[in-house]
């Protein structure tokens, strides 16, 4: 019985040699398998991870849109603040007196009564502070910053004078 079985196996191997060489190679190599403890759960987790990665990528698109919108709003805000600066610095200031405001104590006021009919208000006769014009959009960013710093210094100096 055993001898017969051996024969049959040999025949099969020989047949395979002649017909499918590739298949034979695969059969010769031992195929090791690993049994996963919970294949359904692994498959489920894998698919869910994939789904979440895709959702993540969709979120990136949304994030980019938000950022673009934010940049546009920043630009708009910058324009609005510049317009405000022009309104306050150029137009409104035109109506208000220039020069340093000198603090007048009530005692001094009694000593030197102010003539209310006089058109000129009692401001210091010194040279008016040099307030530079608002920066033009063509100027580079550094010049703008320098001008703004200069304006800030002037304003602080005037405020100190008032105090």
């Amino acid at each position, binding site marked *: 019985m055993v001898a017969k079985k051996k024969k049959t196996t040999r025949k099969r191997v020989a047949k395979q040699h002649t017909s499918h060489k590739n298949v034979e190679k695969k059969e010769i190599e031992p195929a090791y398998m*690993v*049994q*996963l*403890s*919970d294949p359904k*759960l*692994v498959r489920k*987790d*894998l698919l*869910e*991870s994939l789904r*979440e*990665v895709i*959702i*993540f990528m969709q*979120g990136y698109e*949304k*994030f980019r849109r*938000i*950022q673009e*919108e*934010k940049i546009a*709003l*920043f630009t*708009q*805000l910058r324009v*609005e*603040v510049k*317009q*405000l600066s022009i*309104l*306050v610095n150029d*137009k*409104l200031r035109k*109506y*208000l*007196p220039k020069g340093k*405001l*000198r*603090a*007048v104590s009530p005692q001094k006021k009694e000593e030197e009564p102010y003539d209310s009919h006089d058109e000129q*208000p009692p401001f210091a006769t010194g040279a008016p502070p040099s307030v530079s014009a608002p920066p033009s959009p063509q100027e580079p960013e550094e010049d703008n910053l320098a001008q703004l710093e200069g304006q800030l210094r002037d304003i602080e100096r005037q405020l100190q004078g*008032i105090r």
Partner: protein
Amino acid sequence: MPVFVKIDEYDDVLSLLRMVRAKMEEAKETLAKIHDLKNEEDHQLEVWQNTLVEVEKKIDFIDHSLNEPEHF
């Protein structure tokens, strides 16, 4: 210390102040929109953080399953 403004320019000053106020409102609205967008951005970042944590957990489980197969 009083500040004097010519009466003929007083109306101009008032209208100018109205313009300034309107512009201020516009700037405030824009800033509020930026704030909303920032909140939206923060929310999105939080969602991303949670997603990454979830994915990491799942990958850990898969890794664990592959590295420690069932024994016979």
